[in-house]
Structures are given as structure tokens and as C-alpha cells.
């Protein structure tokens, strides 16, 4: 398609800055200008990553974390979509639940941790629940807002052609909210990755969050940075997969992105 060539070179441009910084930092330490004890050079971080990967630990932590994010994302996105659709479509539902949800949304994520541990124990359930909470809100807000904001003019087109309730939903309303829904899923996924760290801080023996805590307690900054980098890569990859899946659904969109 048109525009794929320039966008690829843009993607490469995005790698330039971190690469440059890494090279500079490496050079600074090698030349003795800086001490790399607390901020290890890229070569050390790379070696740590390699060690972790060779022993299979890295894959284990990645899979554990990904599994939690996916489970929490699925749960949060499902509930967010259903409840958001209810609140967007029915004024009664919105009046009833929206104020409560808005209040709950203002609660910082970490505040839930003690309660969830009390309720659900320190194992997987409480972690997945916490991530689901994080994913829920952006999806809920996105879906409810998108449904409320559907263009009345397009609904009228459906009415003129006498669509029944079901046809109106799947031929007009669903496609109309699709872009906003996907954007809300993307920000939900991003928050899911944020919340998984909080979840894994509250006591885990596996996962990238555990790697972070372990690195701190053992005084291994390279391990912390390795985990952070892995988080960045995983998060970006997951978002990329979501974008890729949704792309064929949104080819019709008239956005600035397509013109780049």
C-alpha cells in the first residue's frame, strides 16, 4: 500500500535516539569518563539478558507476565466493553453506574493491592484482578463515549432503510464505534502492562516484576535494566499485534495517519 515505505524509514528513525544514547554511554564508561556500577553499560545489560535467556529464565518471566497481562486484559476489556456499551446505549444504566465508576476510577491502582490480597490471596487471582481493573476503565470510558457520540445522521440513514434493532447495531453502530473501541483497547493494554508491575510487586516468584524486585534486593542494576527493557519490548510488541489485528478492520478510516 502507499505510504508503507516512508513509514518503515520512520520506524528506523525511532531507533536512532536510543541507539545513539547507548553507544555514547558505552563509550563514556569504556574511556573511564563514567563509572557504570549503578548504571551499567549496554554491554553488561546485554550480557545479563543473554545469561537470563540462555538459562530459560527470561522466557519464563516473560511468559508469566504476558499470561497475567493477557488474562487481566481479556477480563477487563470484556467487562469494560459490555458495561461501557450498556452505559453508552441506555441512559438509565449510565445514570446508575457512571458516577460510581468515575469515583472508583480516581482511586490510584496501588490502593487496591492490600484489599485484593485480603480478598483473593497473594497468588494469580488477585494479580489478574488488579490488571483487569486497570484495563477496565479506559475501555469502559472509550466504549461508552463512542456509543453516545455516534452520529445521529448515520443512524437516520439506517432508519430510512428501516433496519431493525439488530441490523442497526451491527450494520451502523458497531462499525461506527470500532475505531474508538480499538483505541480504548490499546490504552487499556498499555495500562495492563503498568498494572502488572504493581501486581508483581505484591509478591511474586516469577515474572518481569519479580525480576525488578529481585534485582533491587540483590543489588543487580543490570538485571533491573534488563527487565525494564524487556517490558518496553513486550509492551510495544503487544501493542503492535493489536494494531496489526485491527488494521484490516479500519482501512476505511480517513485519518491523518494514512496520509503519512
Amino acid at each position: 500500500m502507499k505510504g508503507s515505505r516512508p513509514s518503515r524509514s520512520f520506524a528506523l528513525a525511532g531507533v536512532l535516539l536510543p541507539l545513539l544514547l547507548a553507544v555514547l554511554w558505552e563509550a563514556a564508561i569504556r574511556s573511564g569518563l563514567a563509572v557504570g556500577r549503578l548504571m551499567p553499560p549496554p554491554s553488561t545489560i546485554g550480557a545479563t539478558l543473554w545469561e537470563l535467556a540462555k538459562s530459560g529464565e527470561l522466557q519464563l518471566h516473560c511468559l508469566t507476565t504476558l499470561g497475567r497481562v493477557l488474562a487481566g486484559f481479556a477480563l477487563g476489556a470484556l467487562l469494560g466493553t459490555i458495561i461501557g456499551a450498556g452505559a453508552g446505549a441506555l441512559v438509565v444504566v449510565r445514570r446508575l453506574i457512571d458516577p460510581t465508576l468515575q469515583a472508583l476510577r480516581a482511586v490510584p491502582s496501588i490502593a487496591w493491592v492490600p484489599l485484593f490480597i485480603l480478598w483473593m490471596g497473594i497468588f494469580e487471582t488477585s494479580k489478574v484482578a488488579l490488571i483487569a481493573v486497570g484495563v477496565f476503565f479506559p475501555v469502559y470510558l472509550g466504549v461508552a463515549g463512542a456509543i453516545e457520540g455516534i452520529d445521529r445522521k448515520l443512524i437516520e440513514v439506517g432508519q430510512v432503510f428501516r433496519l431493525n434493532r439488530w441490523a442497526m447495531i451491527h450494520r451502523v453502530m458497531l462499525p461506527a464505534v470500532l475505531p474508538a473501541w480499538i483505541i480504548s483497547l490499546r490504552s487499556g493494554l498499555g495500562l495492563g502492562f503498568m498494572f502488572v508491575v504493581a501486581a508483581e510487586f505484591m509478591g511474586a516468584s516469577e515474572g518481569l516484576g519479580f525480576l525488578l524486585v529481585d534485582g533491587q534486593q540483590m543489588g543487580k542494576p543490570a538485571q533491573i535494566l534488563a527487565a525494564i527493557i524487556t517490558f518496553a519490548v513486550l509492551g510495544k510488541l503487544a501493542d503492535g499485534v493489536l494494531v496489526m489485528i485491527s488494521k484490516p478492520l479500519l482501512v476505511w478510516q480517513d485519518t491523518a495517519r494514512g496520509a503519512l
Partner: protein
Amino acid sequence: MLRLNGLSKTYADGTEALRDISLQVGKGEILALVGGSGCGKTTLLRLIAGLDVASAGAITVNGETIKGPHASIGIVFQEPRLLPWLTVAGNVGFGLADLAPQERQARILHALEKVGLAGYDQRWPRELSGGQQQRVAIARAFVTAPKVLLLDEPFSALDAFTRASLHDHLLLLWAETKPTVVMVTHDVEEAITLADRVVVMRPRPGRMMETISVTLDRPRDRLALGFDKAKRRILHALDRSLQPEKSAPAQKGADNASHWW
């Protein structure tokens, strides 16, 4: 045949948009509604389309009372209102979901050809110009072969040249099934080019003021003698429709003297 009987509409906020509109439009007749802004033209079309409910009066099509959107009534809005997630073909065939795919496709392609967009069926609406989008909207309304077709200033956003070519496309499509057409326009020449009858409306509340028949042969020539006559009659009526009502009769005599034909 479309029949409006004592149609009135008062909006929830108390605006009296229409008062006592009675009108008959024959089968295959093209009727143009002209009038100042806010005199209820859009309101009238929305009532006929079943998108709004009248406060009083009745609408019938071939004797059948219209209570909501009806299969035999189609509408083209002022904006194209295409569904951006459907291709041109998908938009044109939006009202043909019940048809077999082949029949559907054949009708879509035929309608697109008639509006001069053959080969555009797989495009997205965003890839079309404003005039092309409006042509797709016209094709979408015609393709279900409605008995009554409503057009609400469908060409008002377009330049004069595009407009003239769309008039031709519209008449081509109309000639196929000869539906009853009610069209709103701000353009007096457009009304005379297309319509058999022109209804001039008066605002606050919206009422019918005068009906002018246009009996020129089609295709109509803007330079023909009768065209100019009709134009002057309509402009004159429009003029009066915008004047305060009390002074209208007195004004009428003076005006008539200078414009008499």
C-alpha cells in the same frame, strides 16, 4: 401518489415549524419546494420520510398512511451521509440487503453507471470528491426504486457546473422508474430546470404561499423564453414571502405593475 393533509408540526420547544400543509403530488411528478431559511422545508421532508412525527394531519402514499420510515419512500439528505466503513458499492447497496448477491450487484453497478461513477464501486467514500459522494447518495436512494423520492437541497454544497451535470444524472435516474419527487432547493433555476411545479413557502410558521406550474418541455433550456418568465414569477413570490404579512397586499399591487407579464 403522495398526499399531505393538513400537516402541522410544532417542535417540543414550542417552535411552530409547519402549519396546515395540504398538497398532492402525482405519480412521476417533480415538485420543488422553495422558501426562505427556516420556513420548514427540511421539517416537511423529515415528516414525509417518517423521521419525525407530525403534530397534526396525515401523509399517505397511494392511500397508505405513513407512520414511520417506509419502503416506498427514499431520501437524499443535504450531506451525502455515506457510511465511511462501506465501499461505494456497499453504500449504494445498503438498502438492498435482502436481495440475492448477484441481483444486488447488478443493480448497484447499473445505478453507479447512471450517475457517472462506473468503475468506482470498490472505492472508499473518503476517496471521492463532494460531488461524487452526493452522486453515490443519489444512487443509494434510487437503487431501491422508491415510489416517492425526497431530496433536501442535495446540490447546495456544489459549484454550478457540477450541479448542472448532477441535474442530468438525476433526470436520467428519474426517467427509469418515474418516482414522485419532492425536492427542496434554494436555487430558483434549479427548481425550474427540474420541477413540474414549484411551491413557494412562507416562514414563521411554515406555510404554503404560492404554487407555480412549470410546463416547459424537457430537457429544459435556460435561455428559453418561458424559463425566464417562470423564474421571475418565482422570485417575485419569494420576495413577497419574506415581507411582513400585513403590508403584503399593498405591496403586491405596486410590484405587480412592474412585473406583470
